[in-house]
């Protein structure tokens, strides 16, 4: 069983190697076979292992496999060691399973592309690194995966590298995440200095003994790790790269920038939960960042016109929910939301991709419309996804996960009403912009003529995901309704229980409020964009609303801010010093010696008389030394 672990990342890796080395000479069918096949095989193995795990839990609730000694010095050693426990299982399942679906979808979606092989090579490499990230037994190996997914995201965002904008977006993504990574690296150094190890289980066991709760060092560690997470998961203030990252192909957005990579931060925090629990400050920071992010991103999502940007901002905001959940100590709820979110957000991106492709790469939702009847499959699947995103009560997976978070935001150990308020506002906004998206894209009259419709290879994954984004929620019900909690039981083999605080209102009230707010949001969307759009016209007239809209549209102007504060000064600094100030020193020396040479040469003017004077000067000098020396 343990020996199978290595296969899971190894298969995509093999796929990557084959495709990158020989890919350019292979026919597309074989490329597709290798690319999608490797991931699917990995998915099957995962499911197999998962079955085993559920039926007969291994000792210590984890399978482990040691491949080889990576590096070892006197007091530090890191190995290429894999580990599969409950938390890992959830992530690996999502990565391989959703990944496989997306690969299958891509085989059709990318069929016209010149660099077919390069695409699948990069995708496979991504899956491999992502798997390493979540299966790593020590933080160094995890950092390897962490950087690896960064690389792949860079490669895939800039996949169509001939358009400068795409390359710029790719670079931006890499730079900003790199900032987070650097913070995380420092965190690792500090952690190592304190504990003398980077092996995750050892950290989990030693940390409580070594730090007393709230100690400054552990807070620093937690905050630095959090910063790393914020970078990868596009949380404020490092969120600006994700909307631009939509420059990549839609499957990439679905896999990397919705389902898996962007949730790496969530994984990191959950993985290091012991450290975080030791530092209330860090927990509070996590929750606060989550709350602010989900609100800010939600607002931005309302104003976008590019379908993928809308989804991107909604992703940021949903991950905000996850951070909020982790922050308040609702560990399983956070992971559960990741679980459902992976399905419906991947679905939404894939469906959006289908729409975009059949509308000749039209991204602007206001030039879409009326697709309801012409692309029924896409419509229904998209609807399912949208419902989940908006968290329609009871019938959507999103409800079950998000409702938990809302409830814990108030009532969990570190929760408080403020957080709940923000979260509920976020829910309202989410429902609103989801409805807006649905109505504008699928209702109304058609504005762009449809090209070729998506084929089976694209629709089937859509359907599977659609089903999942309905039913995935049913494995975990609110305690007061049905007593079914398969998911939390599973993940709480690794994560701690969610502790509630005393004296909070009964849960049912929260559920009703949440449901009501969601419906309200839906209704608002319905009114504004379908029933009587005149209101919008009035708003467009008023400058205040317009500027507010632009403010949201620009994502609260973070980009301009960073541009003025960091980018421009940096460029200026480098430009003025292009020719290295220190070089002036050498140039100075050179010119001085030239001058000296000229002066000395005057003495060599060929005049005999002057030469005698030279001798005279010499003798005067010598005698002078004797007299005054």
């Amino acid at each position, binding site marked *: 069983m343990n020996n199978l672990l290595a296969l899971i990342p190894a298969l995509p890796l093999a796929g990557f190697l084959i495709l*990158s080395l020989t890919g*350019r000479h292979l026919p597309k069918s074989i490329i597709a076979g290798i690319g999608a096949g490797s991931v699917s095989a990995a998915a099957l193995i995962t499911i197999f292992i998962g079955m085993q795990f559920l039926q007969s839990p291994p000792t210590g609730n984890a399978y482990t496999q040691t491949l*080889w*000694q*990576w*590096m*070892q*010095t*006197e*007091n*530090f050693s890191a190995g*290429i060691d894999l580990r599969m426990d409950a938390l890992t299982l959830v992530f690996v399942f999502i990565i391989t399973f959703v990944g496989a679906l997306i690969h299958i979808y891509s085989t059709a979606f990318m069929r016209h592309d010149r660099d077919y092989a*390069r695409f699948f090579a990069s995708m496979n490499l991504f899956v491999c690194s992502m798997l390493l990230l979540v299966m790593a037994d020590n933080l*160094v190996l995890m*950092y*390897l995966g962490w*950087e*690896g997914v960064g*690389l792949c995201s*860079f*490669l895939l965002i*800039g996949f169509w*590298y*001939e*358009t*400068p904008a795409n*390359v710029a977006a790719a*670079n931006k993504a*890499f*730079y900003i995440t*790199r*900032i987070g*990574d*650097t913070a995380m*690296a*420092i965190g*690792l*150094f*500090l952690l*190592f*200095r304190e504990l003398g190890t980077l092996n995750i289980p050892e950290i989990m066991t030693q940390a409580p003994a070594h730090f007393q709760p709230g100690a*400054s*060092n552990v807070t*620093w560690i937690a905050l630095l790790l959090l910063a790393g997470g914020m970078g990868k998961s596009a949380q404020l203030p490092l969120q600006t790269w994700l909307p631009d990252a939509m420059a990549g192909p839609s499957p990439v957005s679905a896999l990397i920038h919705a389902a898996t990579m962007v949730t790496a931060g969530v994984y990191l925090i959950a993985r290091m939960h012991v450290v975080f629990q030791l530092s209330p400050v860090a927990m509070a920071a996590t929750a606060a960042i989550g709350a602010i992010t989900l609100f800010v991103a939600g607002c931005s999502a309302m104003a976008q016109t590019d379908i993928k940007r809308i989804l991107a901002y909604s992703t940021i905001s949903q991950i905000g929910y996850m951070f909020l959940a982790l922050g308040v100590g609702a560990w399983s709820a956070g992971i559960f939301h990741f679980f459902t979110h992976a399905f419906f957000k991947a679905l939404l991106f894939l469906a959006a991709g289908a729409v975009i492709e059949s509308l000749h790469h039209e991204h602007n939702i206001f030039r879409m419309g009326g697709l309801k009847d012409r692309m029924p499959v896409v419509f229904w699947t998209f609807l399912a996804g949208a419902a989940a995103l908006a968290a329609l009560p009871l019938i959507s997976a999103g409800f079950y996960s998000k409702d938990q978070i809302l409830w814990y935001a108030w009532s969990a150990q570190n929760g408080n009403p403020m957080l709940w308020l923000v979260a509920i506002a976020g829910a309202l906004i989410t429902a609103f912009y989801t409805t807006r998206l649905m109505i504008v894209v699928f209702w109304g009259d058609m504005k762009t003529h449809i090209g070729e419709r998506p084929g089976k290879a694209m629709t089937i994954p859509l359907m599977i995901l659609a089903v999942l984004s309905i039913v995935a929620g049913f494995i975990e019900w609110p305690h007061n309704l049905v007593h079914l909690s398969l998911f939390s039981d599973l993940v709480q083999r690794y994560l701690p229980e969610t502790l509630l605080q005393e004296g909070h209102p009964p849960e049912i009230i929260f559920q009703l409020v949440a449901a009501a707010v969601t419906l309200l949001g839906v209704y608002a969307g319905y009114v504004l964009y379908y029933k009587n759009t005149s209101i919008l016209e009035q708003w467009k007239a008023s400058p205040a609303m317009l500027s507010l809209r632009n403010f949201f549209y620009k994502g609260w102007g973070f980009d301009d801010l960073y541009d003025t504060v960091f980018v421009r000064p940096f460029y200026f*600094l*480098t*430009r003025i*010093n*292009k020719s*290295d100030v*220190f*070089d002036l*020193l*050498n140039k100075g020396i050179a010119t001085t010696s030239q001058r000296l040479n000229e002066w000395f040469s005057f003495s060599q003017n060929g005049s005999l008389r002057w030469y005698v004077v030279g001798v005279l000067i010499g003798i005067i000098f010598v005698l002078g030394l004797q007299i005054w020396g």
Partner: protein
Amino acid sequence: MILAWMIIILMAGGLICWLLARWNKEVVKWVALLAVLLDLILACSIWWQHGGVPTSGANAWLIDYKAAWVPTYGISFHMAADGLSLVMLLLTYFLGTLSVLCSWNEVKGRIGFYYFNLLFTLTGISGVFVALDLFLFYFFWEVMLVPMFFLIAIWGDSNRRYAAYKFFIFTQAGGLLMLISILALYFIASAQNGAFSFDYTDLLGTTMQASTARWIMLGFLLAFVIKLPMVPFHNWLPDAHSEAPTAGSLILAGLLLKTGAYGIIRFVLPLFPQVTADVAWWAMLLGVVGIIYGALLAFAQTDIKRLIAYTSVSHMGFVLVGIFAFREMAMQGVVMQMVTHGISTGALFVLAGMLKERLHTRDIGRMGGLWTSMPAMGGVAMLFTMASLGLPFLGNFIAEFLILMGSFGSNVVITVLATLGLVFSALYSLRLLQKVFLGQPSSHISLPDLSMREMLIMASLTIAIVLLGLYPQPVMNLVSPVIKGMEKSVSFEMNNHQSVISIP
């Protein structure tokens, strides 16, 4: 003796190349290749014999060869190799082979003299790595200068003369100051031992007042940091690197810079343990300055080889930080950095050379979108830019990670600043990639992708860097006894009097 043979083989090979060139141009290349390969094999055989055996710290010498040279001055022909030297030798001959290969078609004129110089440069370098007699060391230190000067001055680019002068004069200045220091140390030691000797082992135990020691140590250190190079003594590097022919840049970046680091590790630390501890803080500071300053300048450059040259300044900053952290882990990282930087930056210079062969320009403004026509080269370039920004699973990551984690224990603030270097390295690396290989194809004439020979070069470099990234342990095993031995003499416990600033 085998060490002496390595030197002799190279020298003989060089002379043969020069003489043969009159009759046959083709044979010359093969002779040169053969000579270097032979040495590579010899080095590997040493590794084979001694690599597995972890020798005890005190006498970590795997091979030791000594013969009288100038007895009147107590100068002996003393060569020895421990793990560190061996690693450096392996690197030297590996890159040496590649340098011969990559000048295969690039160099047209005066082939014989070219390979003569190439092989003599390698001679000097490998001599530096094995010389244990300080006079001999200085001797080789200078020997590697002159042929390199010719390589730059004769086969270099448009501005080659200026670059060659600068290179020679900078290094010569450092070298002569080191010579004075060597002499001073020599007399102090001989006054104590009663016997005149330039032998490393005899000079090791020398005791002197702090002030004297500081001056002498500075003499050594200056020579080495100029070679390294450390800001503000780095100005020779961009010119030399950008003007030199490809093989020249490869050797400069891959090997010559390493002689500086090697010198610090081999001589400065063991000979002057106390005073080095006193300057450690400043050295680390300048190292960090180098990291960031080099990165900023690299970002600004438009000449591809200049850009890569400045990245070397940045990377060598890590070496400086690591050495003066006085931690075994950091020291391991330093050695790794010497090797991996040699490989990765060398590879980048080779790529630059290939681009120049195809496009006849070094200006990245006139490149762009080359991936379309040269996907293989693009892929390799991607790999090595990633290496230079320290991506895991490539060797450079191991090096920088160990250096930073090691020095974090000894000086937090410096290390944090140095870690910021990772961000800057991402900036310049991606910019390089973007300007050269990505974006709209500037020229529509399709360029030939990697040839078989170039493929061979790049494949070997790639394999090396990936192997070092995924399984660096052999190298670390090789050097750990050396570092342990130094730990004894230098007593890394010095770092307990350093400022360990704990975070508030």
